[in-house]
């Protein structure tokens, strides 16, 4: 069971053993502290592609999948917990599962570098007497940091096997699977040195003693410690975070945008010409040609061209998440957030929300304090999710060519809005209270694995492509229909007299003080409520050309427009997630009014101040 060598001799025989468990169905529950690598191991054992991040709270619901090579064994990934006393909603999922579902085996994953704290949970599970296998994960990193663990001693204390592995490097997995197979058959009950209801102080004292006897630690000042002294420095931390954010958005939106947008636009144009000519040759009606070329291709096609930019952004964000930097940012943000009455724990859902607000809103479940949790649910949609980026990229390319600060500024505007929104909410009676203490372990930095980065980036990109080719495509066709026909279903002489034209003209005056009082912008904002990608699609369909967009906006009004799209009430999917977390429809509507009102005021200030200054 050596992590350096990985598999033991007779690897194939061992692998065959777990495949051969066919007598009955088994359930293995994956349990461990937050951020100990459970989901990485879960993905490895089940060939799933669940989202992995190097910070606590990535898993907030249980996930079930079949073990690779044996459909009789179900593997359940549970949210990370520090003990089995239910505290937050995600901890309750784990607690209830162990207490009520009686899994055949608990696979307890331990971050080897954080042995003492992990043993508190090990004690809690062992005191239930459930058969257990303990996987000492990241054993390679611990060894590099001078930590040697005596697994035989731990086995004798808890009466269960301990296996050293590295899930990220797929080392020691065969030995682990073999040990699990043994335990499933043998069902040796684990035991603890203390009873289940022992006082926490006694438990801590006992596990400290066990950890002291089982681990030899050379006090090494490692690379992570040295790097942390810089990136979490009182004065350097924030400038470094701003620089990193700027670099990521600059590289993906500006640099990649300049390289790819030209040929991507030309490709869509060429496809449009090809379809127009082919349809004309086949005798397809003009109206149907317009629907396909101006509607579907003009709408969904104009959004799909941002895929290269989004993919690069996702790759860069995944690298930051996987290497461990983002957990440092949450730690740094805690210092700032606390000044404004928020907890740094709110920042983690916001990082998740940069992909999509829905999982970001769900990630708020890791926050114990109910008021902080609800506030985070309301504030997460301020972050620029992947659906808002096409709008930002569209205007950054069209109106702000050569201004590298524009795209990154919206990320920083999202963070600033979270702080400002939090301050406002804290001053309302309902949310007023002291922020909860924020405890976060900073795991060791590690080189991001190509597999993790690829999986994470490709999953997000695939979701975006799927959404554009289904939902946005349908929405583009509906938008085309509404701007092609009049309310009496006659072909409109001009889009201004179409159904959308009338709706837009009715709503547009509301946005006039923000600098975009034209009906096309008003309609685009309305369509964005169904799905944010629709905003970019609608802008392209309704204006019809880049020149028309440039004529309708000034730089200041374009910036105010993007700010409103960024901060106003999120799409229906995110609203549904908000309602699920908030609980009542009335409060959800209040939250939406707050978000939209906030966006209106910010956009108003940007436009009016910008007009005055420039």
């Amino acid at each position, binding site marked *: 069971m050596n992590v350096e060598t990985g598999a033991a001799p007779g690897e194939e025989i061992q692998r065959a053993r777990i495949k051969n468990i066919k007598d009955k169905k088994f359930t293995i529950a994956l349990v461990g502290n937050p951020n100990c690598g459970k989901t990485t191991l879960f993905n490895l054992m089940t060939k799933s592609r669940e*989202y992995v991040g190097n910070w606590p709270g990535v898993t907030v619901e249980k996930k079930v999948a079949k073990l690779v090579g044996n459909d009789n064994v179900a593997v359940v990934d549970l949210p990370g917990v520090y003990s089995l006393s239910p505290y937050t909603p995600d901890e309750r999922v784990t607690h209830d599962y162990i207490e009520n579902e009686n899994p055949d085996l608990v696979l307890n994953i331990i971050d080897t570098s954080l042995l003492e704290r992990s043993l508190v949970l090990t004690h809690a599970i062992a005191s239930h007497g459930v058969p257990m296998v303990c996987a000492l994960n990241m054993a390679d990193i611990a060894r590099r940091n001078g930590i040697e663990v005596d697994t035989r001693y731990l086995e004798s204390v808890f009466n269960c096997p301990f296996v050293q592995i590295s899930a990220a490097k797929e080392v020691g997995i065969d030995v682990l699977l073999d040990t699990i197979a043994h335990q499933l058959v043998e069902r040796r009950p684990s035991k603890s040195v203390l009873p289940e209801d022992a006082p926490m102080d006694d438990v801590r004292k006992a596990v400290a003693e066990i950890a002291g006897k089982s681990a030899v630690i050379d006090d090494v000042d490692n690379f992570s410690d040295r790097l942390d002294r810089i990136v979490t420095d009182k004065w350097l931390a924030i400038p470094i975070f701003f620089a990193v954010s700027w670099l990521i958005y600059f590289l993906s939106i500006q640099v990649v945008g300049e390289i790819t947008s030209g040929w991507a636009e030309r490709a869509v144009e060429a496809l449009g010409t090809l379809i127009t000519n082919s349809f004309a040759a086949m005798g*397809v009606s003009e109206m149907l040609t317009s629907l396909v070329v101006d509607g579907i291709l003009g709408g969904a096609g104009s959004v799909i061209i941002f895929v290269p930019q989004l993919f690069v952004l996702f790759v860069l964000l995944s690298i930051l998440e996987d290497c461990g930097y983002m957990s440092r940012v949450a730690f740094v943000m805690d210092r700032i957030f606390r000044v404004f009455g928020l907890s740094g724990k709110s920042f983690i859902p916001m990082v998740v929300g940069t992909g999509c607000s829905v999982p970001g809103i769900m990630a708020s479940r890791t926050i114990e304090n109910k008021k902080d949790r609800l506030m985070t649910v309301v504030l997460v949609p301020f972050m620029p999710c992947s659906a808002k980026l096409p709008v930002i990229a569209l205007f950054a390319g069209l109106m702000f060519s050569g201004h590298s600060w524009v795209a990154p500024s919206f990320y920083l505007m999202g963070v600033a809005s979270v702080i400002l929104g939090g301050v406002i909410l804290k001053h309302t009676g309902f949310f007023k209270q002291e922020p909860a203490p924020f405890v976060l372990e900073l795991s060791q930095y590690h080189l991001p694995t190509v597999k993790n980065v690829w999986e994470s980036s490709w999953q997000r990109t695939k979701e975006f492509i799927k*959404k554009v080719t*289904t*939902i*946005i*495509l*349908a929405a583009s066709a509906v938008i085309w229909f509404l701007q092609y026909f009049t309310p009496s279903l006659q072909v409109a002489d001009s889009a201004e007299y179409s159904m959308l034209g009338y709706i837009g003209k009715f709503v547009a005056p509301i946005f006039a003080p923000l600098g975009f009082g034209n009906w096309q912008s008003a309609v685009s904002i309305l369509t964005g409520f169904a*799905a944010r990608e629709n905003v970019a699609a609608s802008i392209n369909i309704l204006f019809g050309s880049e020149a028309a967009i440039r004529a309708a906006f000034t730089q200041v009004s374009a910036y105010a427009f993007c700010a409103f799209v960024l901060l106003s009430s999120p799409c229906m999917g995110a609203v*549904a997630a908000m309602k699920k977390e908030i609980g009542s429809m009335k409060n959800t509507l209040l939250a939406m009014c707050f978000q939209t009102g906030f966006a209106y005021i910010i956009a108003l200030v940007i436009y009016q101040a910008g007009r005055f200054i420039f």
Partner: protein
Amino acid sequence: MMNIVIGAAVLFLVFRGIIAYFNHDSGCCGSCAGCKSACSMRK
């Protein structure tokens, strides 16, 4: 004839998108991370 074929194809794509949208809104588009979690919770 071509009008009918292309019209039917467009209608198919539009209905496919509408179904995807309503599945997404009910919490289970089955593709995004949030929906996957929601699905596993409902199960």
